[in-house]
């Protein structure tokens, strides 16, 4: 009978034990003179868990500031063990963290927290998004008024919309720095527009109807249909101000008339 290659499963043995503290260290590992190496193996366990918790802290600093570091570390540790990264690009990690927070027993008193996390995840996606020159406001002035309703926009790669039933934008903005936070009424619904017009990511609050309008334009629907949806949500929707605001924020790169 052929012997299996010795230790071919070293990675499988490590992998099974790294994120499972109750499992014994792999039988294949030893200390000097063949001694036991449980504490030594724990260095790897600790490196893996702590470094992944720290990668979540780096992505979600406002969530950490709101919960406090000890709460955050416990919540992040549970998430890391349940859902470790499946890509070596750590700036892509934590996409499931907002949903994890929403279901996390101890975070139920902070119903706004998952939306703040979604905002932070969108901020980082905008930060790493492909470079593109934003649409020049002058391009719109050249469109004949009778064709405006058919006009479609190409979204900038960084542009994101996050909608919340809570004051997620205000809470996010107040907690992304070390400045003191004044009392916030968390129950006011807020929608966010995230863009990167130059090198800096910008997060701004959209007015009522603004998110319906912007998300339709980002999806490639014509201006007339997007405006119709916005007026349906908010009868006092200000079309001119909203379109100018989106262009000034760098939400788009181009305009066209045909369906892409």
């Amino acid at each position, binding site marked *: 009978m052929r012997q299996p290659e010795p230790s071919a499963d070293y990675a499988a043995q490590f992998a099974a034990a790294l994120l499972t503290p109750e499992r014994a260290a792999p039988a294949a590992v030893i200390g000097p003179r063949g001694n036991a190496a449980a504490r030594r193996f724990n260095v790897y366990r600790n490196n893996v868990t702590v470094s992944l918790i720290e990668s979540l802290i780096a992505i979600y600093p406002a969530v950490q500031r709101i919960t406090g570091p000890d709460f955050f570390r416990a919540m992040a540790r549970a998430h890391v063990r349940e859902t470790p990264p499946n890509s070596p*690009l750590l700036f892509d990690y934590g996409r499931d963290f907002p949903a994890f927070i929403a279901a996390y027993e101890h975070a139920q008193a902070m119903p706004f927290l998952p939306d703040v996390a979604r905002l932070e995840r969108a901020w980082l996606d905008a930060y790493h998004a492909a470079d593109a020159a934003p649409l020049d406001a002058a391009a719109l002035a050249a469109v004949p008024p009778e064709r405006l309703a058919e006009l479609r926009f190409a979204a900038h790669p960084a542009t994101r919309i996050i909608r919340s039933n809570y004051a997620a934008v205000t809470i996010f903005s107040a907690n992304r720095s070390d400045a003191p936070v004044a009392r916030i009424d968390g129950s006011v619904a807020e929608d966010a527009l995230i863009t990167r017009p130059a090198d800096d990511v910008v997060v701004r609050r959209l007015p009522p109807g603004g998110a319906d309008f912007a998300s339709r334009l980002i999806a490639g629907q014509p201006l007339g249909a997007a405006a119709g949806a916005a007026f349906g949500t908010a009868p006092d929707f200000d079309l001119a101000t909203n379109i100018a605001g989106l262009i000034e924020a760098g939400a788009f790169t181009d305009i066209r008339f045909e369906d892409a």
Partner: protein
Amino acid sequence: MRHDAPPALCPTLPLRFPPPLGGTAGTSFKPAHLPAILAEPPRRGFFEVHAENYMGAGGPPHRQLEAIRKDHPLSIHGVCMSIGGPQPLDRDHLARFRNLVARYQPSLVSEHLAWSTHDTTYFNDLLPLPYTAATLARVCDHIDQVQSAIRRPILLENPSTYVAFRDSTMSETDFLRAIVSRTGCGLLLDVNNVFVSAVNHGFSPQRYLADVPLAAVGEIHLAGHSVQTDDDGAPLLIDSHDGPVADDVWALYAGLIAQHGPVPTLIEWDGNIPDWPVLQAEAAAAQAILDRHAKAPAPEIRHAAA
């Protein structure tokens, strides 16, 4: 396999030939230091970045790296290729690595003798492997793949380890020597890793340095470590990269340079990152050792007096 053309170079970035590093000292590049770095005239020395931090599509990280690369030699240091793992390399990651090297034309490219991915899980740590004929063959095959993707040799870094494997049949230095001769890669000799592993496994770091194929060493790393204790209460050094280089490591390094001459040397500092002048001072300490053992400079060409 489809080969995508590397992305076009940014027109604002006139790349010169990758400058040779000679006997210079460099530091890890940390974005927080960029304003301080740009406020000074370009310094002698190089910067090293972790490849994966610059694998996003666009945005500020690329602006920062372009600003650094414009006036300084660059070293691209991969940390997640998982060269030491039993499974095939991640082709997407290899393509990203190739594109990054093509875009920034670094003076040095390096990776680790370690693994970090199993199945689809990425563990974000440099995990150890047993040294056997089978792992040697696989590591060499992985290095061949990386080198043919980027069309240049890499430097492979010796690991710091906390455990050994029952099944290992070769010493680490024999393993590294065999890799160098089979693949033509160079070595990134991390002197702190040598010291950490020597203490952790009870061997002589001087002996390790005598056994390692020094002619293949194209870069040296120096970093800080921290101290814990192992299962038997003996000191266990942790390769933490979060403080100054230890005196023992400086002594090993100075001896090595005195004996073998200058090699580009990097100060790694990844946690508790200090202000730029502190990091710069650590690099200046390495530079002083390199300069002490530099070959006499070529005589200057004298222009006839007018």
